């Protein structure tokens, strides 16, 4: 187990800057999620930590040692790839054993470790199959077993769930999280899916254009976004942003409620022109405009599915809505968080 520090990492590819000065500190046994849109540099950062890419500038520190010049195999890291990278010509058993064979571990030890990893992930009865004969979920487990069999100090996961269907993804998410808590390996997990990030991360680093926009717990990222990018990237539907005085004002859709649903406290009131709404079973998403307010996108409100006030909220009509003042975030003209002004 080891802490990982990336100190002002820069990576340039022939004229484009993929990573532009990222400093992260991942604590021992922590589950850190790198979250960002595709092309933001999160996978490049992971590959630099792993040693598959060499940074243009900056230091990688794993377990207190600067590992800049060490090849991947000497860094004590294991990585699981998006498409798993299983060796198609090897049986599952040999796939899992491969990282040990390269270290010239005695074969008796290899056998017991492979059995241990297979048992841990519940794939003991798949050991004599080949990757081609496995389902997506089974392949993912084999890849995880192969990553863990060396007992790495750091586990790097690059969008490991993106090849699974939605249902499997939910259970795999849960499994990986539980598993990480039990083994306690420092884990860095790359994803563009905010649900994965919120559900799994001890902390989340939100990355955009090769830079960290915010690092914090899922709660902090959601309730207290550092800037407009984080506010609109996390959350579904995203935070509503409207022009306000000299800057912007933002509030989450679930905080924009019919006026009659809010009692007490300081409330900012709006006249909400409802365009349409979607019924999603557990919730109802309302789309519309706020009268007299400039907004880049339409303003959404997330309401409980069945509420008495739904009777009076009809498409094409105006309704009085409000947001509690303590639920409002203020942003500067350049998008950074500001105090109320």
């Amino acid at each position: 187990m080891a802490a990982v520090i990336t100190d002002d990492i820069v990576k340039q590819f022939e004229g484009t800057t993929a990573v532009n000065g990222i400093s992260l500190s991942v604590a021992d046994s922590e589950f850190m999620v790198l979250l960002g849109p595709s092309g933001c540099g999160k996978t490049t950062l992971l590959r630099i930590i792993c040693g598959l890419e060499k940074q243009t500038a900056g230091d990688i520190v794993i377990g207190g040692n600067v590992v800049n010049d060490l090849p991947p195999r000497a860094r004590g890291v294991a990585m699981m790839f998006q498409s798993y990278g299983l060796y198609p010509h090897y049986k599952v058993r040999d796939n899992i054993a491969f990282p040990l064979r390269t270290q010239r571990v005695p074969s008796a030890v290899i056998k017991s470790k492979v059995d241990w990893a297979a048992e841990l992930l519940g794939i003991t009865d798949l050991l004599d199959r080949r990757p081609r004969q496995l389902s997506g979920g089974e392949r993912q487990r084999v890849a995880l077993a192969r990553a863990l069999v060396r007992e790495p100090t750091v586990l790097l996961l690059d969008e490991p769930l993106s090849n699974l269907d939605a249902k499997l993804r939910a259970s795999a998410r849960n499994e990986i999280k539980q598993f990480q808590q039990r083994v306690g390996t420092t884990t860095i997990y790359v994803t563009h899916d905010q649900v994965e990030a919120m559900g799994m991360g001890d902390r989340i680093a939100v990355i955009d254009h090769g830079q960290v926009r915010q690092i914090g717990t899922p709660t902090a990222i959601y309730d207290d976004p550092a800037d407009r990018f984080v506010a609109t990237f996390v959350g579904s539907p995203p935070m509503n942003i409207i022009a306000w005085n000299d800057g912007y004002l933002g509030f989450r859709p679930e905080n924009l409620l019919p006026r009659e649903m809010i009692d007490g406290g300081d409330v900012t009131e709006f006249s909400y022109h409802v365009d349409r709404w979607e019924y999603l079973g557990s919730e109802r998403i309302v789309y519309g405009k706020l009268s007299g307010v400039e907004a880049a996108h339409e303003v959404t409100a997330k309401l409980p599915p069945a509420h008495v006030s739904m009777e009076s909220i009809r498409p094409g009509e105006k309704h009085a809505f409000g947001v509690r003042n303590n639920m409002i975030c203020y942003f500067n003209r350049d998008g950074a968080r500001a105090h109320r002004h």
Partner: protein
Amino acid sequence: MVAIADKAVQSRSRFKFILDRPKVLGPIFVAPAILYVLVLVGLPFLLAVYYSVSAYTIYTQSYHFVGLRNFIDIFHSQIFRQTLANTFIFTIGSQIIGLILGKFGALVLLRPFRGRKLVRALIVLPWAVPVALATVAWEWMFDSLYSVINWTLVALHIINRSEAPNWLGNPHLAMLCVIVVNAWRFFPFAIVIFLAGITAVPQDIIDASIVDGAGFWRRNYQIIVPIIAPIVVVGLIFGTVFTFTDLSVVYLLTNGGPVNATQVLGNLGFQIGIQSGDVAHGAAVSLIMLPVLFVLVILMLRFIRRREI
């Protein structure tokens, strides 16, 4: 009147779309290939089978059936047995050298470097240059008096002028020469095969093997080569079949000499059957290639099937 006109339109449209029917269009497309194989491969093959069991020469054109006597004759011939062995040495030798050159050439060409596109284009030249031209150039390089190879070796003080090898005059060196020239012709093909195979290996698998601690050799020979084996074997089948039956390099460089040291089946069959006019024995020599290649191809195809798990 109206009804008749309708019928006419209908019957015309039935022929109008006749080429849209797979049952009509398919045979039309396949016919040229089938004709080609029947006329230019099938017919000569049947003729060869027929001649090989006859006593036909261009001097006595007898279609007298002699059974397997021609085959027994050639198997009793010392030259034929040597030729058969030579053909195997020639084929296996040039395939091995070609494959090794191809593998390493592909690895070199996969790395980015300045002028890679030019090198990639140039490397196909040995394959594209007409074999007669290329072999004449090689012949001069191996010439007993003017050999540029010997000149270089002497200039570098590796050998003395007096001990310069006579490349095409020495039986062992001559075999080496025809093998090298043939491998030189074959290796661009091998490079293309390897390049296609290696670029098709998913990057995730290669990355995974690096993270798992595999070095250059382990990564290449335990991960990449097994994955691309089916593609390489297909290339090897082509290379083997072509080389085993090929006579061009031998015919142009040594014509089987010195004293049959580089004689191969194709060239021997040509010498006996065409140049000497003993069509029956020439056909028999050529037909010996058939069972050998048949076994080879079956072995390799079985290997591919086993790999496709």
